[in-house]
């Protein structure tokens, strides 16, 4: 193997206390990893503070996550990661229905309602890419100007053309398998001749069976005709390298980083478990990028260090240090409080934790928008049984979908949506296949051969459609803090207020209508039902629906054109604090109908160019700390 092996530079408190870094980064997820890699490769000394543990970087540590997942009764997104009361992560099984007007503070994420949000993120080295699915569609040009075009949400301070080259950089970094043709067909522009680094993941047999009945059929909406086409999704998953990539130079997928001499990152082999863990590490996660950062030997990692306060020089508004609480053992609240000093500070702890840390530091920004405009993708699920066995539960969780309704004039009245065809069956909606086993054994009184046949009949035909619905920025959806609610280390806990506006509820109603048409056209038996006792249940025009969170937290420090309409500029630099960058999906003014990770990675590549200029500037070169 030609690549140099990774050596992680773990540091102790003493080293951190005695060093003034060029850059201090809070959070070892994908944003922090991209920034650390880019800036260290250009000669800067970087410190990363990570709230969670570091064991992810060892092969043994990763294997322990796999085993924890195997033995977890609840196999939710955070199932592989042991609970850590010193840096808790939200978990969907903890969420329960809210009582109107009452705050639910039983779990880390304090729910203020009116709707309970079950989205999670993961506070470990590698961040939420340690559990993400890996779907990486670009946003479409209209998504960058929804206020201008549709009178909804916010406009970006940049257009698609400006971010397009950085999408290519991000797609290289993440190692995307995808079909440019499929994406072009749904309205995503690409540079002439561009191909993704790797060829698209082959569509599942289920995709093919849906496409046979659905492709080229049409649906009318507001006098416009929308054609249904099943198209593959780009994904951050090792596939077959594309020979035409990079002017025919091809592409070699990154291997996983590990401090042990095993760099493991195989081609996808159909483990059917992209979320939360790919056991052969075919799925990209931020450890790959962290590995490149560590190879520069200019990056220090201090794990189990929870940032608690950003310290500001009141005279010039510069950040002077990040205060953090360092613990030795997640079983004990014992910790040491210390500070990390540097010239440039990058807060990359995700949209919720970034807002929490800023608010805990008294930083509300001139615009007052820190923590406001919280976005996520509310998902509506619809599920049915295909007429014949499709062998559901094989392959990557999702290989294809229908993107006809990602753009159109209807966005003046109702939100856009994209449809995923789930290869993993009804699990997200009903708890299948476990729920099927329990029902067939406990209630249907089947055993032996009858049991086996019943399982095939009920699981192998499952079709789950997930409707990802656009949610525009709205200041009343927000993350806040309150001294009443702190965690075991005494850090503020995030308080979430969340609602789904009528603009989106109308899309739930419409999406349900579309789901019925799809089931009718595919001959699938519609088994969808929404339970009023579900925590995501709400009504619209007399009909009930259930939403699920998309784990795509965004918007809590939006970028914009000036300090009055936004928290950061288009480089994700704080308007109020010249040496402070707030990076990640929190900067995004809209999220359209795209999973956020690819776009936030592209934004980080834009930011690092500006960070380099800042670090060389007179003002920061001699920054007095």
């Amino acid at each position, binding site marked *: 193997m030609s690549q140099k092996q990774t050596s992680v530079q773990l540091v102790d408190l003493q080293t951190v206390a005695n060093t003034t870094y060029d850059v201090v980064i809070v959070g070892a997820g994908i944003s922090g990893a991209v920034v650390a890699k880019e800036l260290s490769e250009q000669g800067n000394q970087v410190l990363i503070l990570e709230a969670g543990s570091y064991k992810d970087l060892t092969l043994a540590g990763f294997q322990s996550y796999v085993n924890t997942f*195997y033995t977890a009764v609840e196999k939710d997104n955070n199932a592989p990661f042991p609970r850590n009361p010193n840096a808790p992560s939200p978990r969907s099984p903890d969420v329960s229905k809210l009582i109107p007007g009452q705050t639910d503070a039983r779990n880390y994420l304090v729910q203020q309602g009116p709707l309970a949000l079950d989205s999670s993120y993961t506070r470990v080295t590698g961040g939420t890419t340690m559990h993400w699915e890996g779907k990486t569609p670009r946003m479409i040009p209209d998504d960058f100007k929804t206020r201008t075009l549709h009178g909804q949400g916010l406009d970006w301070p940049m257009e698609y053309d400006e971010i397009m080259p950085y999408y290519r950089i991000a797609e290289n970094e993440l190692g995307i398998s995808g079909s440019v043709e499929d994406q072009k067909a749904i309205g995503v522009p690409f540079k002439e001749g561009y191909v993704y680094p790797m060829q698209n993941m082959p569509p599942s*047999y289920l995709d093919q069976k849906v496409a046979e009945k659905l492709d080229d059929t049409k649906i009318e909406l507001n006098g416009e005709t929308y054609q249904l086409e099943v198209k593959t999704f780009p994904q951050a998953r090792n596939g077959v390298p594309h020979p035409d990539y990079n002017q025919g130079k091809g592409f070699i997928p990154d291997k996983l980083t590990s401090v042990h001499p095993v760099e493991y990152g195989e081609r996808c082999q159909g483990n*059917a478990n992209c979320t939360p863990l790919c056991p052969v590490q075919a799925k990209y996660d931020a450890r790959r990028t962290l590995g490149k950062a560590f190879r520069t030997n200019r990056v220090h990692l201090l794990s189990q260090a929870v940032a608690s306060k950003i310290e500001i020089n009141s005279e010039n508004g510069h950040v002077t240090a990040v205060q953090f609480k360092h613990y030795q053992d997640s079983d004990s609240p014992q910790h040491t409080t210390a500070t990390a000093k540097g010239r440039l500070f990058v807060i990359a702890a995700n949209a919720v934790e970034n807002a929490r840390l800023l608010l805990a530091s008294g930083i509300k920004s001139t615009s007052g928008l820190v923590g406001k405009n919280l976005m996520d993708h509310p998902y509506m699920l619809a599920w049915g049984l295909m007429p*014949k066995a499709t062998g559901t*539960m094989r392959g990557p969780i999702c290989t294809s979908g229908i993107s006809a309704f990602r753009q159109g004039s209807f966005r003046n009245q109702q939100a856009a949506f994209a449809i995923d065809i789930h290869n993993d069956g009804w699990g997200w909606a009903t708890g299948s296949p476990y729920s099927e086993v*329990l029902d067939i054994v406990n209630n249907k009184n089947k*055993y032996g051969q009858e049991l086996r046949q019943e*399982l*095939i009949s009920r699981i*192998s035909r499952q079709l789950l459609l997930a409707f990802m619905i656009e949610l525009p920025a709205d200041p009343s959806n927000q993350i806040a803090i309150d001294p009443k609610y702190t965690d075991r280390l005494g850090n503020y806990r995030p308080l979430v207020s969340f609602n789904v506006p009528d603009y989106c509820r109308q899309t739930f109603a419409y999406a349900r209508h579309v789901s019925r048409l799809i089931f009718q056209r595919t001959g699938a038996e519609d088994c969808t039902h929404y339970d009023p006792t579900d925590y995501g249940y709400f009504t619209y025009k007399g009909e009930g629906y259930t939403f699920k969170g998309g784990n795509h937290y965004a918007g809590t420090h939006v970028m914009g054109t000036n300090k009055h309409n936004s928290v950061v500029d288009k480089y994700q630099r704080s308007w109020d604090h010249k040496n402070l960058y707030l990076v990640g999906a929190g900067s995004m003014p809209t999220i359209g109908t795209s999973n956020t990770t690819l776009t936030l990675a592209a934004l980080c590549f834009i930011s690092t160019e500006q960070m380099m200029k800042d670090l060389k500037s007179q003002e920061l070169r001699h920054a007095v700390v």
Partner: protein
Amino acid sequence: MSIDRSQLMKHFLDFSVVVTGFSKFNLQGTDQVAAYYATIEKVVGDEILAELLRTFHRLAEQATGNQLIMDRGMRTDIFGSEKLGPIARNIIKLWYVATWYQLPQSWRDNFGVKENDVTFVVSPQAYPEGLLWPAIGVNPPAAKAPGYGTWSSPPVITLR
């Protein structure tokens, strides 16, 4: 191992074949027979487990290969027994998803709360051996991957 326990272990394997619909060969191939036996013993105690397996053995001897008689006996004396039914159903679940599910409240009220009777997955080794996955022609999620692109092919299982 005492002669009695080794005899009961054999009954356990025979019982498992009948309730799971998988062959003795398949079940032994999971390498979980002893682990599951020990798990059940640890949760409900050896007496109840022995009662279940002796009941099964008696039914099998009486049925002398007659499926109808066996099914009636299984349904009446085992699945339809207030004491043995919930344990028999739990053994099916154990085989299918490697999980012991806490017994129903009514069982606990009538036959006593057992200290180890909580819902748990037996072990990281047991999880990939669940019979659910071969039953529906797929790999256990996150284990035993079938290979790149296999998901594009028609399934091997069929509806009857």
